[in-house]
Structure formats: C-alpha cells, structure tokens
C-alpha cells in the first residue's frame, strides 16, 4: 500500500524548499567551524593537559626541595644512617627507620587483607548467589569509603586496647593495631579486583577440572586461582601501594618514634606520619627541617610509583594455562 501524497500547501512548499536546497548546495565549500567552536576546543584541550601539568607539578615540587635537601645532607647518610632525628639537636638523616615503620605496618595490613580479601573474592565468585552478591559487594565497598580519620580513631581507641588483652607488651602506640585496621580498609581492593580476575577465568577450565573428577575446593585452589594469579597479584600490589601511602591511621595510632625494628608491638613512625608531624609544627620554609618532608615525600612517591608500575605490568600479562 503506498502512502498518499498530499496535494496541499505542504507539497508545494516542499517543492520550493527543494529549490532552496539546491541553491544552498553550492556551499559545501567553506568552513563549518565558527570562532566559538575553536575557542571551546582550545579550552577543552587545556583541561586535557591539566593532568600532565599535575604530574609535572608533583615532580617539580618534590625535586626542587629534595635537591636542596641533598645539598646539605649526603646521599650516603640518607641511605646508610640508621637513625632519623632531624628535629633533635643531634641530627641524623637516615631514612631507614621511617621506611621500616612503613614496611611493618604495610606487612601487617597485607597479612590481614590478603587472606580475607582473596577468600572473600572466592566466596563472591564461586559460592555466592546473585542476590547475596548484590548485597555483599556494595557492603564491602563501604569499607573502602570510610574516611581514614575514622579508622585512625578506631585503631587507637578500640583495637589497641582490645589487642592489649592478649598480645603481651603491646605499647599504647604500636604498629600492629593500625596495620590491622589498614588491612580492613584495603580488603575490598583485593576482594573486588581478585573477584574480577577469578570471574574472567573461562568456565571451560572449571569444567575440565570437574571432568577429571576433582571436587570444587580442589578446582578453585589448584585451577581457578592459579589461572587468575596475575590479576590477583596486581590487586595485592595495588593494595600494598595504598597501605604504604596511608597517613592518618598511622599518624594517630602508630606513634611518633622512628625506630628500626621488626617488632610490630613497638611504637614506630612511618614516612607519611612524619610528613604530617612536621607540617603540624611551625617549621619555616627554606630550612633543612622543612626540606626533609620533601625528601621523605620523594622517597614515598618513588616507592608507590614503582609498586603501581609493577602492578600494571603484571595485570597486563595474560594469565597462564589458557590456550
């Protein structure tokens, strides 16, 4: 059935419109870009450049003060001295106590987060019903969204006294409590990213394992998890990086005594907490003490940058065991 062609003003108008169109057609030459459009594009490009400027800003700020720092303190002392006392009258500038503080708390954090995160991921991927997943996943994300000042409060006021009940000689400020709490905070990172990695393992692998007579636990632990190991490792590295960069939880609960120790029951100070401590005081700009926070900041930046880079590299490599 063909649609009717209206013999109306509209058709006559449309015929004349076609003529207009044909006359207009000559202008496929020229330009459609107005000045306004060029200006807008330049503004957007400037915004796009913003992120590069931020990175350059960070590198410049850290480098400028760090170079000035190393004009007064030798590289050797920074790397070899075992004491960090820049604010005392006898000054030592060995970075290791701070690094050791950072490492202890991060290790404690990962010691909690790795098993809890990975097993959570396994539960979410392999066992949870869709309804359970719908509820549990956002619930875990909430853990990541709690402000760190709140976690710091928790570590000092609740966790330390509680731990003191069964850990002998636990100091009021120690590395264990904040480490544990950081672990709680980073568990969702490991859980969520590892779950993605486990989910990405093709079902054919699981079926092959079942077909050979293996039960579910064996399949998960010896087939699925190894197949997802690059994703899982990448997630753990990202979590470590987050733990290393954490500030408030350790600033509140770990103490202000830089010590080189492997005992988490002692009071320690991390790189991040040191920066905050000095910032709260009245250190004038241009002094050596002022420059120390930038030197420590540079070390921190390099450390987290390398861990993140490693994590990205590992995430990119495909998981083994698949044709």
């Amino acid at each position: 059935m063909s649609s009717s062609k209206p013999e109306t003003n509209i058709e006559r108008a449309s015929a004349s419109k076609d003529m207009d169109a044909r006359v207009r057609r000559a202008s496929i030459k020229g330009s459609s870009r107005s000045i306004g459009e060029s200006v807008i594009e330049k503004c957007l490009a400037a915004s796009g450049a913003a992120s590069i400027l931020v990175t350059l800003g960070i590198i410049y700020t850290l480098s400028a003060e760090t170079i000035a720092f190393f004009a007064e303190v030798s590289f050797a002392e920074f790397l070899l001295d075992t004491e960090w006392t820049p604010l005392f009258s006898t000054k030592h500038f060995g970075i290791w106590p701070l690094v050791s503080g950072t490492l202890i708390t991060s290790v404690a954090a990962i010691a909690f987060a790795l098993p809890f995160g990975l097993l959570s991921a396994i539960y979410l991927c392999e066992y949870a019903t869709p309804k359970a997943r719908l509820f549990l996943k956002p619930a875990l994300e909430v853990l990541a969204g709690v402000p760190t000042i709140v976690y710091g409060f928790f570590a000092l006021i609740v966790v330390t006294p509680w731990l003191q009940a069964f850990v002998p000689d636990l100091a009021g400020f120690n590395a264990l409590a904040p480490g544990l709490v950081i672990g709680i905070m980073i568990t969702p990172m490991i859980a969520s990213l590892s779950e993605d990695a486990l989910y990405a393992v093709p079902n054919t692998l699981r079926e092959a394992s079942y077909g050979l007579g293996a039960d579910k636990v064996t399949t998960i632990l010896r087939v699925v998890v190894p197949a997802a190991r690059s994703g899982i490792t990448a997630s753990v590295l990202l979590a470590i990086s987050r733990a290393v960069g954490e500030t408030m939880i350790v600033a509140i609960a770990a103490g202000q005594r830089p010590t080189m120790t492997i005992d988490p029951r002692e009071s320690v100070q991390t790189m991040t907490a040191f920066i905050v401590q000095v910032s709260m005081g009245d250190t004038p700009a241009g002094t050596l003490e002022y420059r120390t926070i930038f030197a420590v900041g540079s070390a921190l930046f390099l450390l987290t940058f390398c861990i993140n880079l490693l994590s990205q590299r590992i995430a990119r490599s495909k998981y083994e065991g698949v044709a």
Partner: protein
Amino acid sequence: MTTSNQSEDVQSGIHIRDLNAGFGDNQVLKNISLDIPPQSVTAVIGPSGCGKSTMVRCLNRMHELVGSAWVNGSVKLGEDDIYGSNVDPVLLRRTVGMVFQKPNPFPHLSIRDNVLSGLKLTGRLVASKADEIVERALVDAALWDEVKDRLDDAGRGLSGGQQQRLCIARSLAVSPDVLLMDEPCSALDPIATAKIEDLIRQLKERYAIVIVTHNMQQAARASDMTAFLLMGELVEFTSTSRLFTQPDDQRTEDYITGKFG
C-alpha cells in the same frame, strides 16, 4: 532511468573516478569508477567484506572518521569534487544524508525533536517553520499517520521499523540531495522492510538514493541501477533488470545464482 521533469537540473548525479580507499595497510576499494544518476535508486550488492559500506561511506566522507582510514580519487557531486581542498566534510554531510543499519534515533529526544535534530544540531532551525518541517518530513517518510498524535513521546518507544522511518524523516528534514542507506532493513522484520522499500520507491522522485544491501531480492525489487562489488573491485554496473537477467560478467552471474557469497 527516470527522466527528470524538473526545469532546473542542477543535480547531475554523483561521479566517482578511480576511488581507492582502505584502513592502514588494508586496501578495501580498488579503482572504483561509476556514475550514480540523480532521481533514481542505485543498489550496491556483493558478498560480505567486498567494500560496499566503505564505498558508500566515502560518498559522505564518513569513512575518514576512523583513525587509520585513507582515501584517494575523486568523487564529484555535480561540478564539485567532494575531496577538493576547500570542501568541508561537515557541510558536505548536510547535502549527502545517511541512514544506518541499526536504527539510531536519539533516545533523549521526542519524535518531534528527533525529526528536527538535524537542523537544531547545526543551528539552522527557524522556529516558525518547525511544525511544517516536522509534518512534511514525517509524511515523506510514511510515518506521519502513525505518530501524528504523539509527537512529544520519546523517540525510543517506537517499533524497529518505525524507528528506522523516523531516522529517514530526520535525514529528509535537512533537505539533502542524496540519501545514502547502509543496509537499512537488515535489522527489521519483513513487513517493516516492505514498508521501507515502498518508501524508497517514492523518495527517488526527489533524491538520488544509494542503497547498500546484502539481500539480492531487495536490490531487484527496489532499485533502478545495481552495482556489483567483489573484493573491492567494481565488477559490473548496469540497470537492475539487466544485471539480474543477463549479466555481462561471469562472476556476477555466479553471485546472483548463489554459487558463492
């Protein structure tokens, strides 16, 4: 070929000469030359991957929107080579319209605003003429009767065939000279397809239409001229009736009798 009974024949069709195109190292079109007549329907057929879509996208310079794409050769719209140095592809696309395989009306706009979108987007809408333009375009696209009472409803609430006719109305509202259609019916059911084929037959009185199709019966039903492409080369270009009954080239005969493709 229908003779035009316009007194002013400004349109003289599309003249393609030595068109080569591809993506990066992959050459898709090889030395295509043909003349598409005005006021008619030209079908482009061929097996998958032969370059039909690419060729049609070269006619409105949308092929080059992909990063690695390249083109050389000449395509003349009347007197003007659309690849000339002072031609703005954006302006070109206001003269050479395109309807895509999957209907793509704007979901956040009403039916009315969808029809007007070509003019609104480019800042050419005269508000007083809006109603007139909407009605004319929807009438021309054979959709007016079905939607005239719900012009303010969302464009996405229509059936597949209606959405495609809405897209056609949208393209017609900017008064193009040429309408390119890249497999416009492949996502639609047979009834919707038949409606659109009817529509195409009516539209050819005012537009040059180029339709890419993998459906040979559709080409036979709806077009005046047919071009057969194989592996990037133009094998044969002649009137539809002739191509489907007495093709010159053996490859054409093999294709239309189903020996491959």
